[in-house]
């Protein structure tokens, strides 16, 4: 499998980045749900730190991914795909990239606003990006919470669209991103 994308399929780098992102998203959501049930205690702090660390990892991966994408043309969409579907697909992918940066950023800002420095897996501490403010924490918390639901819905739509392409349209939109699929 080539490293770079070609006309028909994604290369191994794009696939690795995509599926790493998938695992990181699954982890960050699972931890978020788990920690919402944890009582106040050291394990809550450890769990929140893990959630923040994976969120930051997503942001870092997103930057690499966007960089890679800028120099690697994505495989073409199916020729018979209607205009409005193309538009929706591009808009959804743009939104997903914005989320990979924006959501961790809102969490990082929340940590800064709460004067709870964000540690990256205990390796180093991120600088503060906001002046501590209780009002800002409440606002960011609400944004982070509602965005989490919105993003969850968008991801379901992303998965649903891929499955629709595969099983209904019977095109290669899903298979060309599959990890071990040679396309």
């Amino acid at each position, binding site marked *: 499998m080539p490293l770079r994308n070609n006309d028909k399929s994604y290369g191994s780098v794009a696939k690795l980045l995509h599926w790493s992102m998938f695992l990181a998203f699954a982890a960050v959501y699972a931890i978020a749900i788990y920690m919402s049930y944890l009582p*106040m*205690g*050291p*394990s809550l*702090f*450890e769990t929140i*730190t893990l959630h923040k660390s994976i969120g930051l990892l997503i942001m870092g991966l997103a930057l690499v991914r966007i960089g890679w994408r800028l120099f690697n043309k994505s495989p073409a969409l199916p020729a018979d795909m209607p205009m409005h579907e193309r538009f929706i697909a591009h808009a959804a992918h743009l939104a997903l990239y914005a989320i990979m940066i924006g959501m961790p950023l809102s969490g990082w800002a929340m940590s800064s*606003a*709460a*004067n*709870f*420095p*964000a*540690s990256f897996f*205990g390796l180093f*501490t991120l600088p503060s990006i906001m002046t*501590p*403010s*209780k009002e800002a*924490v409440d606002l960011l918390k609400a944004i982070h919470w509602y965005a989490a639901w919105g993003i969850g819905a968008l991801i379901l739509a992303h998965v649903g669209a891929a499955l629709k392409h595969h099983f209904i349209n019977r095109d290669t939109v899903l298979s060309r991103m599959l990890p071990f699929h040679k396309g």
Partner: protein
Amino acid sequence: MGRLFALLVILGASPAWATNWTVTQDQSKLGFEATQMGASFEGQFKEFQATIVFDPENLADSKVDIIIPIASVDTQSADRDSNIAKPEWFDVATYPEARFMTTSIAKEGEGYVATAELTMRGVTKVVQLPFTVDIEGQNATAAGDVTVVRQDFGIGQGEWVANAVVGGDVRIFFDLKATAQ
């Protein structure tokens, strides 16, 4: 003769009166720096009552007594502030105040070292706190810090005793502005 003696006593006694200082609260800081998951954060006490008698020429009569209502803590996080008051931490319901009271002050280098009794969560420990004082006319600035181990005072009970999440070392600092009375 008797009058002259009385005058000498007054003159002789006057240097013994060390100056009383009033802290300007809104320009002063009294707080601490602790760590969570290895990252440091700062907190301050918005209220405290300080009784300060200080004269560089008369350290023997100089003393500092600061009483801090723990509930006035502000770490810029409402969640954390309310947790600090809980029984596992400062147990504010039982021990509403912390107190710092010097027993002696000595000159050391350019600054001073206070030997003081520090009481937090009902436990009193002797601490050595180095500090500097800068007096200009009627105004003075005093700053210093001391690092204590929170577990020595029983701060952070149960699961919180371990240093993994909240570090043991806590740096207590002050930067006080005061005017002479």
